[in-house]
């Protein structure tokens, strides 16, 4: 590995490193689609928090194609796929006694969801 030296710091801070991937991958979902998040419990890295597993939501926005952290974090390849902003009601996440005008938006990868039947 190269040494992190003073001369590379400004460029590194100014440009960063996007996990976006310029690859033509077909989306599995589109805005407006009703989805259910998978109820999986990986023991390794994941960006699927426990509190949204197995919940019903609606796709709001397609962010484009990104590397999949669940595999890329372990040297398992980038597995490029779409990431979407998905909307969940608090009533779905936390129970029917919650106010009907509260929502949680979270970014979900294709592999975290299946269509709601």
């Amino acid at each position: 590995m190269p040494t992190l030296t003073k001369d590379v710091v400004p460029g590194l801070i100014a440009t960063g490193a996007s996990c976006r991937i310029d690859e033509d991958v077909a989306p599995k979902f589109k805005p407006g689609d009703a989805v259910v998040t998978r109820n999986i419990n990986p023991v390794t890295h994941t960006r699927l928090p426990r509190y949204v597993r197995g919940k019903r939501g609606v796709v709001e926005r397609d962010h484009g194609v990104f590397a999949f952290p669940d595999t890329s974090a372990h040297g398992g390849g980038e597995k490029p796929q779409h990431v979407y902003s998905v909307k969940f009601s608090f009533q779905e996440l936390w129970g029917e006694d919650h106010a009907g005008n509260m929502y949680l938006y979270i970014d979900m990868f294709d592999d975290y969801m299946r269509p709601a039947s």
Partner: protein
Amino acid sequence: MAHVHDHDHPHNKPLSDVELRVKALESVLTEKDLIDAEAIDLIVETFETRIGPRNGAKVVARAWTDPDYKKRLLENATDAIAELGFSGVQGEDMIVVENTDAVHNIVVCTLCSCYPWPTLGLPPVWYKAAPYRSKVVKDPRGVLDEFGVSLPEDTEIRVWDSNAELRYLVLPRRPDGTDGMSEGELAAIVTRDSMIGTGLAGAS
């Protein structure tokens, strides 16, 4: 690093576990020739003096005064923010969400501490702490209350969990009575917390 003696911490106190761990890591990375102390100093100096919430405040003030800019900001935040010169690490893919009379947005990262560095700098300690991260997705009004913010019952609350690669900035509502203010004056009333969603612009 210069050590200014205008504070009163005791110098004979043992180092905390975190301080010891950081020192051990820095030593081992330096010995393995992976980092250079001057590079680390420059990173710290950059985020202490150059990159912080004043950047985000300029973005907000521009959006409040320029409707075309606001439109671009809400459609493609990364590019619109870069127009003002702010981009880079932890701001590579940005989303801006707008607070209105009807909707209030709040940002969190329940998995760790993801935060838009180019516009807000490094996150405050409470943002990274478990109490905020676990409570705000379940009881955002309770969290707002702790921050001294009270919203009408009919205001829709949207909580954004930045769990993946997108980073979020809240465009706060422009306070009433600010019509005559310049862009610079407006930027001065935009607080860090108002751009996270735990505060309102214009509040101290």
